C-alpha cells in the first residue's frame, strides 16, 4: 500500500510547485499564450509549431506500437483475443477518468478527486439500489434510480469543485485534494467502509455483456463512445474552443468575452459526471461497490493525459492523445503479466514514460518560444 501511495505524494509536490510558478510563467509567456490562442481560433500557425504540436501524438502512438511489438516478440500470446479483452477491460475505468481529466488539464487545472468521485458515486448509487431491492420495487426502477444517482452524485461533486475553484480563486490542486479526502471519507460513511454485493443482476450483466462474438465488451464500447463524443466536443464545438482558450491564456479569454468562471464550473461538472459513469462501469465490472474503488486512479488518469501530450500548463491536449496514453498503460499491464514480470514494474515503466512525455512537452514549449 505504501509503495502505491508514494507516486501520488511526489506528483502532489510537483504540482504544488507548478501552481506556485504558474502565475509568473503565464506573465512571461503571455505572447506565446496568445499565439496559441490565435492558433485555436484561426488555425493559422507556422509550420514548425504545428509540426511540433502534432508530433506529440505520433510520438506516443509510435511508443504504443513499439511496446505492442516488443511484447509480441517476447511472448506469442500478446496478439490474442484474451489479451485484447484483458487490455481493453483494464483500460475502461482509466480511459473515462482520463477523458474527464483531459478537459480539466487543458484549462490549466487539475482534478485529483476523480478516483474519489468514482468510488463515492458508485457507493451512493449502490447503497440506494441495495435499499430499494429490500423493498417491493421493480428491478427496472431500482436500476434506473441507481444509475441516475451515480451520475447525479458525480456531477454534483464536480460542480462543487468547479464553483469553489472559480468563485474563491483557489488552486484546483488544493480544492480537489480537499474534496478527494472528504469524499473518500464520505464513501466509508455511506456503508460503514464495507462493500455492497446485493445489486440487481442487470448491473453485473452490464459488466459481462459482450458484442461481436466476445470481441467487444459492452463497457469498452461505452468508454470508447464517450471518448469519441468528448473528443468531438473538445475539437469541434465552442465549448471545446473555450476550454482551450481558458487554459491558453485566461486573461485573453476573459477579454475576448468568455465567461471563464462559468466555463470552469461546467468543465469540472462534466469531469464529475464522467467519473459517475466510470463508477457505474466499475460497479458493473466487479458486481459490487467497494469502498476502495477508484483508489489512486487519479494518478493513472493524469499520467494518461500527460503521456497523451496534454500540457499541465494548459491549452494543449487531445482526446486522441489521452486514448493512446491510456492504451499504453493498459498494454503495459497485460504485457508485463504475459512475459511473467511482476505487476509493480508497470508502475516503474509508466512513471518513466510520464517523465519522458512531460520532458517532451517542455521541449515543445521551448520550440514555441524560439520560432
Amino acid at each position, binding site marked *: 500500500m505504501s509503495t502505491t501511495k508514494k507516486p501520488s505524494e511526489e506528483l502532489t509536490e510537483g504540482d504544488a510547485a507548478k501552481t506556485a510558478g504558474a502565475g509568473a510563467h503565464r506573465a512571461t509567456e503571455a505572447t506565446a499564450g496568445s499565439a496559441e490562442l490565435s492558433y485555436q481560433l484561426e488555425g493559422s500557425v507556422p509550420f514548425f509549431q504545428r509540426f511540433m504540436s502534432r508530433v506529440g501524438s505520433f*510520438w506516443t502512438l509510435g511508443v504504443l506500437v513499439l*511496446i505492442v511489438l516488443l511484447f509480441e516478440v517476447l511472448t506469442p500470446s500478446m496478439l490474442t483475443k*484474451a*489479451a485484447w479483452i484483458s487490455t481493453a477491460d483494464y483500460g475502461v475505468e482509466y480511459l473515462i477518468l482520463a477523458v474527464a481529466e483531459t478537459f480539466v488539464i487543458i484549462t490549466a487545472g487539475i482534478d485529483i478527486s476523480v478516483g474519489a468521485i468514482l468510488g463515492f458515486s458508485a457507493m451512493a448509487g449502490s447503497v440506494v439500489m441495495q435499499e430499494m431491492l429490500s423493498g417491493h420495487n421493480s428491478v427496472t426502477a431500482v436500476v434506473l434510480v441507481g444509475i441516475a444517482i451515480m451520475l447525479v452524485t458525480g456531477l454534483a461533486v464536480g460542480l462543487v469543485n468547479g464553483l469553489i475553484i472559480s468563485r474563491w480563486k483557489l488552486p484546483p490542486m488544493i480544492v480537489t485534494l480537499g474534496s478527494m479526502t472528504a469524499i473518500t471519507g464520505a464513501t466509508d460513511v455511506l456503508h460503514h467502509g464495507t462493500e455492497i454485493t446485493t445489486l440487481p443482476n442487470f448491473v453485473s450483466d452490464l459488466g459481462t455483456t459482450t458484442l461481436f462474438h466476445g470481441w467487444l465488451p459492452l463497457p469498452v464500447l461505452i468508454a470508447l463512445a464517450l471518448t469519441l463524443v468528448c473528443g468531438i466536443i473538445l475539437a469541434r464545438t465552442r465549448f471545446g474552443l473555450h476550454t482551450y482558450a481558458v487554459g491558453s491564456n485566461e486573461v485573453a479569454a476573459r477579454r475576448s468575452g468568455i465567461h471563464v468562471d462559468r466555463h470552469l464550473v461546467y468543465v469540472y461538472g462534466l469531469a464529475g459526471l464522467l467519473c459517475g459513469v466510470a463508477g457505474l462501469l*466499475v460497479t458493473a465490472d466487479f458486481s459490487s461497490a467497494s469502498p476502495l474503488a477508484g483508489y489512486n486512479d487519479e494518478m493513472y488518469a493524469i499520467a494518461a493525459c500527460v503521456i497523451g501530450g496534454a500540457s499541465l500548463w494548459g491549452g494543449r491536449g487531445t482526446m486522441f492523445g489521452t486514448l493512446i496514453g491510456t492504451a499504453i498503460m493498459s498494454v503495459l499491464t497485460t504485457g508485463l503479466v*504475459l512475459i511473467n514480470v511482476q505487476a*509493480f514494474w508497470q508502475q516503474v515503466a509508466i512513471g*518513466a514514460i510520464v517523465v*519522458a512525455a512531460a520532458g*517532451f512537452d517542455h521541449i515543445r514549449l521551448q520550440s514555441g518560444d524560439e520560432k
Partner: protein
Amino acid sequence: MLRSSKRSHAAWFRYTAGAAAVAAVAVSLAACGSSSSSGSTHKHYTIALVPGLTTDPFYITMGVGAKAEAKKLGVTLTWQGGNAFTAETQTPVVNALLAKHPDALLIAPTDVTALKAPIQKFVNANIPVFAVDTQINDTSLLDARITSDNIQGGEAAAEAIAKLAHYKGDVADESVQPGVSTTDARLQGFATQIKKYPNMKLVSTEYYNDNPSTAESQVRDVLLAHPDLVGVFATNIYGAQGAGTAISSAGKSGKVYVAAYDADPENVKLLKSGAINVLVMQQPALEGKLAVEYAYDKLTGKSSKIPAFTQVPNVIATTATASEPSVSKYFYKTSMN
C-alpha cells in the same frame, strides 16, 4: 548566446526523453525474466498461482511452498498478482493470464463477488481453478478449496495460553471487526476451548478496527476491570501490538500472556522479545504445496484423489520454542528465493 544554448539544450532533451522512454520499456520488459523451470519428458504443464498480493510474507511463503512442489513434479509455476489486496489490482492480472492459457489456475481471490467473472472465464476455457486460502461465493466454479483451519487456530491459542497460566484465570479476546469470517472462526475456536477449562473464563470480546491504540486502551480497561486476567488473544498483529503495550505499561508482563496470529517477521520479533507469548502460525507453504499437488492430479487424470475442501491445521510457537528449528521453519518468508 542564451538562445543557442537553449536550442542545443532542447535538442539534447528531445533525444534523451525519447531514449529514456524506450529504455524504460526495454528495461522493464527485460527485468526479472521468467521463473520458469522445465523438467519432465511427457506433456509439460504450466500452473499459474495468483496470490492475494505479492508483497505479503503469508503469500510469499505460499509461493515458496508451491514452487518447491512444482519443481518436484516437473511443472512450471508462475507467481503473479497485484501489490495490494484488492479486486482492482488482482483482476487485471487474472484477466491477462487467460491469454497465456495456463493448464491450471491457483488463486487466493481478493473478493468473494468481484473475482467471479474473471474466474468464470477460466472455467469457460476448460482451465481448472483451485482456491487457496480465500475463496469466492460461487464455489461451483472451483475444483477444490484449500484454507487454514481457523477454528483449530483459536483452539490452539486457548490451549497455549491455558498451559502458560496453569489452567486458571480470566481471558479476553481482541478482534478486528465483527462479521469477518476468518477472525470470527478464530474467536469461536478460542471460546470453545476455554470452556473446557473449569477454572477459566472468557470475560471480554472487543473490536479494534485494525488500530493498535484502540486495542491498547481496550486492553487497559479490561485489565482494570478484571484483575485476574491471565491472557489476551488477538486475531491479528495490530491487536497483539496494542495488547502488548497495555500489558507492559500496566506492569503485568509475565502475568498476562498474549497470543497472536501469523508468523510475519514483526510478530516473530515480538515473540522472541516476549511482548507476545504465543503465535498461531498458519501453513501457507503447505497450502501452496497442496494446491499444486491437486492441480497436477487433476491434469494427470487423478481427480478422484482431490478432496473438494481441505483445512490445513495451524502450528503453535511460544517465546520458549521460538528458536527451535522445528518451530522456526514455519516462520513466514519475505523472499521467493
